[in-house]
């Protein structure tokens, strides 16, 4: 299977017949000898390998950072790949200057990746430089030397130098990006679009790859693969009668920043901060999260509570299944090999609906959950008209807490009812002991998260004190 992949690497045109499944990180270091991109973990946790991907849409190139250790080479077709080498100017850039000034580099190994992410944050048009924006850019990076304070302090220098003239054009104007960026759109436009892989059953269908590469990184480079992300049409979010349709390849970042989604899940951005780093949010797809069937998939749990439906397509036609009945057992799906998930349908909730998502992991942010929980309620004066409740980490599948939901529906929220609901939930769940916690802990945590979430949703009817009278 030799498919030619054509893209621009920094200022250089590349055409390669390498296996499309090999990792960009390996391509950069082993073939291009671009040693500024570092390997720290090979699983998207440390950010040392961060690069920027530029995508052409409507004549404009949009840039976003990703971890090159989880992204297949084949997906670069028609794109601009920018490494630290491609950001270097004769003098230090404002980002580089800020890090030098603050003493925010020690051993230096994580530094190029951090420079790349911070630069990417400045390349977002209209983005404002703030402590939060700097921390967001640093969210997918581990630095074991500095303790981060000096890195965060780069904010002041960035503000001074860039003065919120963010976006690629503004940076180019000030000479903060190499001049070759000006011609990239034009050059990308000349790359013919890749032939679409249609109806081919491959060993690996790679979407965002953020989980698949961790599980299968040895096998992928030796196997036939399909790079799903070349199918742009599966990235759209649209409103259909009563539903919001989310293309299966919509990335977490696209999902969380879309106005339709923000309307129905107003706190989605807050949840994202718990869920994944910026780089991973740029790669991980909603469809991938569902198909991966991890019992602790954060987005899946949220979508279960939202009562999402899935559109599955094979060569012949499509069918729709509710997400709540999609999981048949550990990593077992109601899906045939020839079916591909194309669309996720989220019912537009009634106006009075409120949604809450919570997650506890060893590290608060950007860690895999011990237990996660999502709640959707429609209520009137504490009377629960409709409820969706799902939890992860407590069963072999992302679990729709069906019995707990039926129990709660039609009840008026009170401490006693919640205790009864928790008792029902304890019968529904079956956590195991693993690296993310003991089975007892997960049971306790599931209880606590239900209490916390309902106190949050019903502050007038519930308080923490009444649950712990005996303390």
């Amino acid at each position, binding site marked *: 299977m030799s498919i030619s992949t054509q893209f621009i690497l920094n200022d250089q045109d590349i055409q390669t017949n390498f296996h499309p499944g090999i990792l960009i990180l390996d391509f950069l270091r082993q073939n291009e000898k671009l040693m500024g991109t570092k390997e720290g973990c090979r699983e998207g946790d440390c950010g040392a390998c961060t690069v920027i991907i530029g995508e052409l849409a409507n004549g404009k190139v949009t840039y976003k950072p990703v971890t090159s250790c989880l992204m297949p080479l084949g997906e670069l077709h028609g794109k601009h790949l920018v490494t630290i080498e491609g950001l270097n100017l004769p003098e230090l850039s404002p980002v580089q200057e800020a890090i*030098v000034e603050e003493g925010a580099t020690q*051993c230096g190994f994580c530094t190029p990746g951090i420079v790349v992410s911070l630069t990417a944050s400045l390349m977002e048009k209209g983005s404002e430089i703030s402590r939060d924006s700097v921390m967001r850019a640093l*969210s997918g990076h*581990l630095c*074991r030397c500095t303790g981060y304070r*000096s890195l965060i302090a780069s904010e002041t220098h960035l503000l001074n130098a860039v003065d919120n003239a963010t976006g690629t054009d503004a940076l180019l104007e000030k000479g903060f990006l190499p001049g070759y960026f000006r011609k990239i759109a034009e050059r990308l436009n000349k790359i013919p679009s890749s032939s679409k892989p249609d109806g081919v059953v491959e060993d690996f269908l790679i979407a965002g790859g953020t989980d698949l590469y961790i599980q299968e990184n040895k096998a992928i480079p030796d196997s036939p693969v399909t790079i799903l992300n070349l199918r742009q049409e599966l990235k759209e979010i649209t409103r259909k009668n009563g539903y919001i349709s989310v293309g299966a390849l919509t990335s977490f970042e696209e999902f969380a920043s879309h106005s339709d989604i923000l309307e129905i899940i107003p706190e989605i951005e807050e949840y994202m901060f718990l869920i994944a780093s910026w780089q991973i949010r740029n790669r991980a797809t909603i469809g991938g999260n569902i198909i991966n069937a991890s019992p602790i998939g954060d987005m899946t749990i949220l979508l279960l509570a939202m009562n999402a439906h899935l559109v599955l397509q094979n060569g012949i036609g499509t069918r729709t299944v509710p997400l709540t009945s999609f999981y048949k057992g550990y990593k077992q799906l109601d899906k045939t090999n020839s079916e591909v998930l194309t669309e996720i349908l989220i019912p537009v909730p009634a106006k009075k609906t409120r949604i809450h998502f919570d997650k506890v992991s060893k590290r608060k942010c950007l860690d895999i959950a011990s237990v996660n929980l999502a709640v959707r309620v429609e209520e009137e004066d504490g009377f629960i008209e409709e409820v969706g409740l799902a939890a992860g980490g407590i069963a072999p599948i992302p679990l729709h807490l069906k019995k707990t939901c039926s129990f709660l529906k039609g009840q008026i929220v009170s401490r006693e009812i919640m205790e009864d609901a928790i008792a029902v939930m304890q019968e529904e769940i079956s956590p195991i002991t693993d*690296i993310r916690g003991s089975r007892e802990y997960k049971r306790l945590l599931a209880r606590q998260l239900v209490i916390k979430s309902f106190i949050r949703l019903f502050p007038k009817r519930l308080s923490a004190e009444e649950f712990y009278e005996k303390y």
Partner: protein
Amino acid sequence: MKNIDAALHTRGESEYADDLPQPAEMLYAAVYGSPEAHGKVLKLDFSEANKVPGVAAVLTAKDIPGENQIGPIIQDEPLLAKEEVHFAGQPLAVVIASSPQTARKGVGFITAEFEELPIITDPKVAYAKGEIIGTPRTLAIGDVDAAWDKCDLVVEGTCDMGGQEHVYLETHRARAIPLEGNVIRIHASTQSPYACQRAAAKILGVRHHRIEVDVKRIGGGFGGKEDQATPIACMAALGAWYTGKPVELVLNRSEDMRMTGKRHPYISDFKIGATKDGKILAFEVNHYQNSGATADLSTAVLERTLYHSTNSYFIPNARISGACCRTNLPSNTAFRGFGGPQGMFVIECALEKIAEALNKPKEEIQQKNLLKKGDLFPFGQRFQNNHVQRAWKNTLSSYDIEGIRNRIDRFNSEHFGTKKGYAVMPVCFGISFTTTFMNQASALVHVYTDGSVSVTTGGIEMGQGLSTNIVKIATKAFGISSERIKLESTNTTRIANMSPSAASSTTLLNGNATVLAIKQILSRLKSFAVEELNLPDKDSFTISEEKILHNGKDTGMTWNDLVHKAYLSRIGLSAHAFFATPDIWFDKKKERGEPFAYHVVGTAIVEVTLDCLSGTYDIDSVKIVHDLGRPLNRRIDMGQIEGGLAQGLGWVTLEDLQYDEKGQLLSNALANYKVPDVYFMPDDIQVKFLTNADSELGPYGSKAVGEPPLMYGIGAFFALRHAMKAFRPDLEFPPTSPLTPERVLMSLHPEFLEEIKELEFPSHTLTEETV
């Protein structure tokens, strides 16, 4: 002065061992580590691996031409296991192939059979079975047995401390290049080039001078590359020796985590006695160190645990004992603090227990027992100054401990499900390698005829800013611009027999050696200037801003003139100098001596907020007064303080190292071993420096800074317990670290755990771990 490497780092142009240009025909190695934690090797079959296209060789113990032994203190560690394996991941074979992927593919085809032997992971079990490395040690002061009766109050407890993975961002790596005349040059990511040189020579059966080790910089070490970089360098060297081609070995993260050792977990039993007003009269502790499978540096780590078991306090009667317990885990090793954190953790737990028993704030008990000038440590050294007291008082007053206490008490009385807590954490850390002979270093300085300078020391730049410190020291010592000074890679052909870059002493030792070398050159240059300028008294010459001054007056001669003329007059412009820390000694038979040149002290206040419903927490602030002496470079020293603090906070909170009972590492990836990220660190970190605390020994009055700040992080453990107590004053919490959200939640709600245990639901089983 800014970090001299900073610009290169930010441009991605800094070269680490495997970033160097790749020689043609370089081969790549991958390691086959034992799948079992303990067993007799019955069969090791690599015939299929050899058949993988691109595999050049599979090397085992049989292929080692010299001695299969790399133990640094005790000779108990083979490079490649032969008859027996003692931990999961222990190297058995090295596959050499045309690419890293091919080498790993080869590893995948190796199979082995073992006769299972009993696996020990608990240090107390090991101790009971007599699995002890070296000899147990005891430091004693006063008469502890007689003192118990004089105490109004005696409490006991057991501390259980977890280990800690280094997570240097750059994993272990080395590249070995065969050169003419049976020489191997190794570019290693090591804190100890000489250890690599010594061990590789032994493995290959050659003299030390046949092995050259060169290190430009390393991507973090934290102790993890003090001794454990040695096998990596040796395996690469063995591959190069065998194939005659350059061989590179880079462990990926999961290999690195599985094969290499970490900070030692400890279980420590303590007993402490005090008067009713909180004066500690007696303290006894037994440390059971989980050393892992081999000695490595464990005996030295234990020694420092013993030295720091009374932290910043004077205890008149104490018996401090410890043993290195051999278990079937990867051999645990140096990690920033080197046993000190574990020693301090226990005494802080003991004081907390006394405070609780007396119903007083812990800091009142701490304050009552702080070291004063002239107080004796249990190993016979006298504390030399009043800096412990000064740092303590300074911290409490400048950060307003009263205000903090009142604010937190008020918050806790007003909030039910969220509680705040604080703790004061003093640190008193001894500076020097506790093994006296290691306190030595050399430097080599060349002045070229254009006035530029080359400096080589035996120290390794690993992020701690050594290179910058040395350039600054050389700049000051010469009196010339820093632009003229270039710091060379660390190389065993230029500096012989160097000690590892460790013990916070690298700048002290290598900086002093650099000053001595420069003094030699300056002495020659000044003698020459006396003649050349016909002015008397060479000591009246100084160099400032590249001008040659006599009694402070410009002689009109520049640095360039002087150097060039000296060269033409055949004056030596190079010098090699040697420094050894004076006046330190230790008598192990008597367990008495003065092992430390001085102590670095400081005090921190840590504040936290705990969500008692979910067990999650935030570290709100850390406020420190730290003793830096006269700082060489505040920017660099601040980086050391903040970075050390982050690791200390991580150690007692979220860094949860887990092995199963089969000795298999469960926290085997960065996905399940979490280190502090940008959101974890407190928003409010304040650091003040103790003034008038110069060191007479450190270059230009500076003090060591690498390790001590880590131990401020321990305060987070006690701050969290303070918050937990505020929620559940009725409960007692076991002193088990790290205090993960799981431990917190389980401790806060034991009633529900009882209920949950009663629920006898069938539990499903997962076939594999999931993400």
